[in-house]
């Protein structure tokens, strides 16, 4: 209506000589146009309403979990590290764990993670996680899992991160700090993975409770590949947890790992400070207790949230230790073998607080106890450490979105005897593709 009047006004202003009758005809034509358009618009609106009222046939918007099949995600990680330069990096009093990835000084690329997952069919789903580095591809995980057994039962098979403890199942990109805890470094290098099977059962109770057992090849530290039939490692785990009101939630667990090693190699320094190779054969048993508590006001973690996690372990290793002949290099060892027994323990505790959207800060304390080590005759060649490795770590990180994170971390590391190391790390973690579903 307004437009018609405006147009008419404009026309009469522009052509004052226009006869009134002509203006009337124009007005009438415009009105005709308007009514016909209004009728057509109304008809179209009615059709839209009709179409909207029809429920879309199920399957119209069929999709996979994230709209992609299979789901492929890629994690880009890198860092700048300002570290000391010790001759032999290790944790005092602990035999080094397998292939612990050393952290180079300066700029470096962390493992690039490629993860692919999808449903296999209505009964299974599958997952692959590759860690890519120069001239090296590690199959971190490659497994299938049942989805149709029901009754709370899930069976997993292939290579998978064991459900031991709390942090073990988390890949490095999901860690709250830029480096591993001393506890996991001493226990497993990075994390414990089985080549085997896992059976897990979730109880149908109000309070969460799950129980599981795993059997695997046992080739990973603290065990070794022993070329035999049957399983080389077993683990058991139980977790329970729940909510306290709307704001608090917790989970606690207890796990046990049994494995054996045969000629497990470890590089140490002997009493003359000469590099020496040790070989351990025997059994290794580990207890892990874990506890996690999370808080968010009304359970809304978007603005502020807090999480506290702690894990404690005890490891008992019993067998023989050989110190390989290094006399040629001026060392003390001469291929002597004697009984070895070590009962060691340690823990970490960490707190992470998101104080505003996108910003988090955290503190972690690591402490290990070299415990009681019996070396037998090897005591004449190898040092017995009474140093208690500790580390204080502070971090602050900024996440522009759920898919990217930048982190600054400072650590006061006393994991080596007589060395007080200040470590600075700047790290980035970016994830591409459908990602985001993280466990508690």
């Amino acid at each position: 209506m307004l437009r018609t009047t405006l147009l008419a006004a404009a026309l009469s202003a522009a052509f004052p000589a226009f006869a009134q009758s002509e203006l009337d005809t124009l007005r009438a034509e415009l009105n005709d146009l308007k009514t016909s358009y209004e009728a057509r618009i109304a008809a179209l609106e009615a059709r839209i309403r009709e179409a909207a009222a029809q429920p879309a046939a199920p399957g119209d918007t069929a999709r996979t979990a994230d709209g992609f099949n299979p789901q492929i995600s890629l994690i880009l990680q890198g860092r700048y590290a300002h570290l000391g330069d010790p001759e032999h990096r290790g944790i005092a009093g602990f035999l080094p764990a397998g292939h612990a990835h050393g952290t180079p000084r300066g700029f470096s690329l962390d493992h690039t993670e490629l993860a692919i997952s999808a449903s296999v069919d209505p009964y299974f789903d599958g997952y692959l996680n590759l860690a890519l580095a120069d001239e090296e591809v590690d199959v971190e995980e490659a497994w299938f899992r049942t989805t149709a057994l029901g009754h709370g039962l899930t069976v997993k098979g292939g290579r998978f991160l064991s459900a031991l403890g709390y942090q073990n199942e988390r890949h490095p990109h999901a860690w709250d700090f830029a480096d591993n805890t001393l506890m996991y470094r001493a226990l497993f290098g990075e994390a414990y993975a089985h080549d085997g099977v896992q059976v897990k059962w979730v109880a149908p109770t109000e309070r969460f409770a799950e129980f599981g057992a795993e059997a695997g090849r046992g080739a990973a530290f603290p065990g070794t590949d022993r070329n035999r039939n049957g399983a080389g490692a077993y683990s058991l785990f139980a977790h329970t947890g729940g909510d306290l009101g709307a704001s608090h939630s917790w989970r606690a667990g207890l796990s046990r790992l049994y494995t054996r090693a045969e000629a497990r190699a470890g590089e140490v320094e002997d009493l003359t400070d000469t590099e020496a190779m040790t070989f351990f054969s025997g059994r290794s048993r580990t207890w892990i207790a874990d506890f996690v508590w999370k808080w968010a006001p009304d359970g809304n973690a978007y603005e502020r949230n807090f999480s506290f996690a702690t894990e404690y372990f005890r490891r008992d290793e019993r067998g023989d230790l050989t110190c390989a002949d290094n006399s040629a290099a001026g060392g003390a060892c001469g291929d002597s073998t004697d009984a070895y027994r070590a009962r060691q323990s340690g823990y970490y505790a960490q707190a992470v607080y998101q104080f505003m959207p996108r910003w988090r800060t955290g503190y972690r304390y690591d402490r290990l106890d070299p415990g009681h080590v019996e070396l037998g005759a090897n005591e004449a060649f190898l040092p017995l450490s009474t140093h208690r490795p500790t580390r204080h770590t502070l971090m602050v990180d900024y996440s522009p979105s759920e898919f990217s994170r930048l982190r600054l971390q400072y650590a006061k590391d006393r994991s080596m005897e007589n060395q007080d190391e200040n470590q600075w790390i700047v790290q980035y973690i970016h994830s591409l593709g459908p990602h985001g579903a993280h466990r508690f």
Partner: protein
Amino acid sequence: MKRLLLLFILCLPCGAEAALNVFACEPEWAALAGEIGGDAVRVYSATTARQDPHRIEARPSLIAQMRRADLVVCSGAGLEDGWLPVLLREAGNAGVQRGRPGHFEVARYVTLLEKPAVLDRAEGDVHADGNPHVHTDPRNIARVGAALAARMGELDPATASRYQARWQDFSTRWNAAIARWSQRAVPMKDMSVAVQHKSFSYLIAWLGLREVATLEPKPGVEPSLTHLARVAAQLQATPARAVLRATYQSPRPADWLAARAGIPALALPYTVGGSARAADLFGLFDETLDLLLQAATR
């Protein structure tokens, strides 16, 4: 320990009093399942109106509830991608996996708006299938309810007729309420509003409001001061009558902008439980309409 475990396993069937355990991802679907099921169902809502359904921790308590569920009712369309898949795979409950009758995905029964033309994370946290906040249009609740009542009957045939009867009763009252709400909403047709997140697109489409600005620069990205200043400048050219946000969202961006533009910031209940009056689905829309009308007639 072994005896205890045995006792535990023997006791498993003890917990099954309710015919149907419903696990609803959001309070609105919990309320709807409750309206249909009445006493015959035990409904658990995984989230509250104080929580952002995009960002939920896959807490142990949720896994325990998922384990016991006979029916899972979730919005879908990517809303729960950050946590629902974890619950589904950790709980070991075969009947509620995707594609099973025990898994009810709301987005399949309504027409989704705002389906993105380009899928790129540079556009923020976009949902590939369209906007998942479908319940803010009460007509969608009616569509979903019809399908949900049928699904509940399918899973629990013994009570199916009761579900249908309750649904018919609810549906009659609901359609009458929709007519009433539509009538009340006439004065606010074409009212311009700014929204914090695209939570109310269906409400806006239903009432014929006009969304002139979004406070989030991209979906799921926290509003920054520079962006808010831009929105404020934009509102000078195309003024809005109110800024809308859900009660679970931070009040700061909406309040800041509202003060700057001299318009009210409305904290809409968004879902059941979002305010004292929004105790059920009827209350939710009664209060939403009241708040909007106040802004429209101010």
